[in-house]
């Protein structure tokens, strides 16, 4: 087996264990079910008791381009891809040409020799896709099912797991379609099993399944927003955020959320601000370009003190950039978005689990601080599937409490704490009353006997427009105070992985890049090098006084980011004065992988 390692003492996790991992990859022409097949494989691996991390490559086209889907399978938690592909399924010649550089002589290559001649020294598995299709009278797109069946035979997977998923997939279409599709899976499986006995392995032999979930960052945001009782999600489709829109739209009959696909991103955010003003937890989702259109309204949320959660799945820009690829290029844009000065919170989850934690937290923070909260994802986190322990999620859901801050809620809508009842004397409610923590009470709009306005102009405590110097200062100071309150009450320091004191190298990073660095640390440890990672997911605002002590003089710090300008490095310097001179930056639209980091150190 290609990448089987015996690591006797793994200090990193403090566990003694036997590592087993391999990479399965399928490629073919866009429109031939590559994405679906890849996800089916990830689910089979998960249901068989393994951890997975997958990654898709696809151009911004519907038909004709090249698609590839890679799954890293292991019996330990995986957070990245590995360089060698152990089993490559070529649905066309281009797949081999594009990905052969990741093969070695032990790699299996599944292909149809009637389609192309395979040169080179590999474990070649010729499966007659075309012949099987013709015999079973299948359509071209079913080739992927044959190939998936064949690959399962080689790696010792259970055909029953695939047959079960086919049943689930085609449940609505009836028994006839189900059994028709199953025939192709079985044909591929049986062909490989009987013709390539010498190659059969037990890589995917079923273990005790732990009840793991297979989720992307977008799935996790969607689920997190439901857990947080978000009632309105508004969006305009934009890769790589669009699957949040479709997932939440598909769920709305069940969840009762209203999902609006508005005419443009300006309408998107203003719809959400309207519903938030009326008392519904509201969120929007987009990528950089769509967010750019929302920016004026972020500022509106800032001055009107309207809670809003904004999900941004970054992709490489500028402008249309590379829509289906990944980059951490919009951090400073998000941090600085909006004219004028107002508080804003930017959170950047490092993985699917953190996405659930931070999304649910974001809705609470938006309500507590009555200001925009941004969740920064990127294509890598948004579209890659990861294993997530179901038990962890179940426990998290039980632990999570909705906190709507200083919302005064006299209607029956009261999910958890609601707000306390206040004695209000004037009908004209003091929506922007000066307080010590900068946060004013927010009366549920529509409460009988009162009224107030959310004013985009500078305003008095009662919301009416003002241009008086004294009142202006009061309101600016009040809004600014919310940042101080946040830093005291809710800001969380970066998590450190590894021992900072003993580390020779300390990586500094934020967001989705976490997985690659964790794996880099393992690789370095195998070479006897101790390292640590300081990983920020509460990316803005930053608490200087708490952060400075984490950065010890004389240590070798390396900033690792998926952008060309080291944006977090700049932000850290701006906010804390800490300058990290050594940088590893990757900005070709691909994630930075561990071997690349190791090579560049």
């Amino acid at each position, binding site marked *: 087996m290609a990448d089987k390692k015996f690591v006797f003492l793994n200090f990193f996790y403090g566990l003694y264990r036997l590592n087993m991992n391999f990479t399965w990859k399928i490629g073919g022409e866009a429109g031939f079910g590559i994405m679906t097949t890849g996800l089916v494989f990830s689910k089979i691996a998960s249901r068989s008791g393994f951890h997975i991390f997958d990654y898709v490559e696809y151009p911004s086209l519907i038909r004709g381009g090249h698609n590839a889907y890679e799954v890293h399978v292991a019996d330990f938690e995986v957070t990245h891809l590995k360089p060698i592909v152990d089993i490559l399924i070529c649905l066309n010649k281009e797949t081999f040409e594009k990905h052969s550089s990741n093969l070695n002589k032990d790699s299996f290559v599944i292909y149809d020799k009637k389609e192309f001649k395979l040169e080179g020294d590999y474990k070649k598995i010729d499966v007659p896709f075309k012949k099987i299709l013709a015999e079973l009278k299948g359509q071209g797109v079913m080739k992927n099912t044959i190939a998936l069946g064949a690959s399962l035979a080689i790696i010792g997977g259970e055909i029953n797991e695939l047959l079960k998923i086919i049943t689930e997939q085609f449940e609505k279409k009836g028994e006839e379609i189900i059994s028709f599709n199953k025939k192709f899976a079985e044909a591929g499986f049986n062909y490989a099993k009987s013709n390539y006995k010498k190659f059969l392995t037990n890589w995917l032999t079923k273990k005790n399944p732990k009840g793991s979930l297979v989720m992307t960052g977008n799935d996790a945001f969607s689920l997190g927003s439901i857990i947080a009782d978000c009632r309105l999600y508004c969006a305009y489709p934009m890769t790589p955020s669009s699957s949040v829109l479709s997932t939440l739209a598909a769920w709305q009959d069940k*969840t009762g959320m209203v999902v609006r696909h508005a005419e443009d991103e*300006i309408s998107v955010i203003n719809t959400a601000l309207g519903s938030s003003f009326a008392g519904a937890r509201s969120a929007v989702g987009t990528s950089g370009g769509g967010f750019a259109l929302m920016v004026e309204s972020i500022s509106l949320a800032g001055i009107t003190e309207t809670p809003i959660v904004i999900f941004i799945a970054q992709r490489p820009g500028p402008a249309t950039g590379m829509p289906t690829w990944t980059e951490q290029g919009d951090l400073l844009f998000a941090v600085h978005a909006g004219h004028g000065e107002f508080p804003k919170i930017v959170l950047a989850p490092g993985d699917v689990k953190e996405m659930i934690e931070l999304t649910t937290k974001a809705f609470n923070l938006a309500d507590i601080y009555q200001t925009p909260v941004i969740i920064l994802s990127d294509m890598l986190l948004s579209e890659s599937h990861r294993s997530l322990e179901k038990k962890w999620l179940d426990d998290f859901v039980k632990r999570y409490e909705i906190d709507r801050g200083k919302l005064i809620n006299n209607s029956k*809508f009261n999910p958890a704490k609601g707000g306390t009842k206040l004695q209000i004397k004037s009908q004209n409610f003091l929506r922007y009353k000066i307080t010590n923590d900068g946060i004013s009470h927010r009366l549920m709009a529509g409460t009988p006997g009162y009224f107030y306005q959310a*004013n985009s102009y500078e305003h008095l405590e009662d919301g009416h427009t003002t241009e008086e110097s004294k009142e202006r200062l009061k309101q600016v100071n009040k809004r600014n105070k919310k940042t101080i309150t946040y830093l005291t009450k809710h800001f969380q320091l970066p998590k450190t992985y590894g021992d900072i004191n003993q580390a020779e190298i300390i990586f500094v990073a934020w967001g989705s890049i976490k997985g690659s660095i964790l794996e880099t640390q393992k690789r370095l440890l195998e070479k006897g090098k101790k390292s640590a990672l300081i990983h920020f997911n509460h990316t803005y605002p930053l608490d200087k006084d708490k952060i400075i002590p984490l950065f010890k003089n004389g240590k070798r710090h390396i900033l690792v980011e998926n952008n060309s300008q080291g944006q977090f490095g700049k932000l850290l310097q701006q906010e804390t004065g800490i300058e990290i001179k050594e940088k590893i930056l990757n900005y070709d639209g691909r994630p930075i992988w561990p071997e690349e980091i190791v090579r560049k150190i």
Partner: protein
Amino acid sequence: MSLIQDFTGYPPTWCPGCGNHGIGIALKSALVGLGLNPSTVFAVFGIGCSGNMNDFLNAYAIHALHGRAIPNAIGIKIANHQTKVIAIVGDGDCYGEGGNHFLHACRGNHDITVVVHDNSVYGLTTGQVAPTARKGYKSKSTPAGIIEVPINPLALALTQGATFVAQVFAGNVSQMIEIIKLAIQHRGFSLVNVLQPCVSFNKINNYQYYQKRVYFLANEYQKNNFELAMKKVVEVNKEKFPLGVIYQVEKPTFTDQLPQIKKEVLIEKDRFTDFSSLVKEFT
């Protein structure tokens, strides 16, 4: 029962003689007439002289961004669809900056009332041309006269699916009250285009200009006839301005078609907690 003064906020800052005074009084009278009070009205104001009514009218209100009042109003309506939601906007605001939102709000038959102060000029920025100004209109931004032909908001509303299209004249407060009442009572998207003189910056479309060119639709006018309405709304090309309800039909509103809020308004529903039924998809 509420009174006019319940709705009265700070004293208006509009120019003496401005049509906005009449619109403000008509709006408050209509709200009182409908038995509403400041706690049962949601108002969204655009930016411009019209939007400055935010400080003069008591209600649960958003003083929005320029052009963006309509999506705010749609959001309020979705969250709490049993309340009355009114957007008070200007012509530059609604037909220029926010034109896209206007079209799509018509399409969605969102149950909001949009009252547009149409004075063909930007008053708050002291006299630049608005999208409803006639071709050749000279202004601070178009000293040689505007090249573009005017937008036809009534025709746009009609063709994009609005179910209530009306026009009134700021010089006739009693008709404004009646029409605004009808617009608020209408279930679905309602547009009230108010022809309004700007006494400071528009020297052409003044009270005399409109008085000569407006006329009331006859009592027997068939307001549910789309073709007839189309004929009426293009009369503006001949500088004729019909006043009254030009078009009205009953169709399901946007929120009528959301099954998830059939039984309860969105903000009053119980929290959804059956997470395991969603999580199944990820196994």
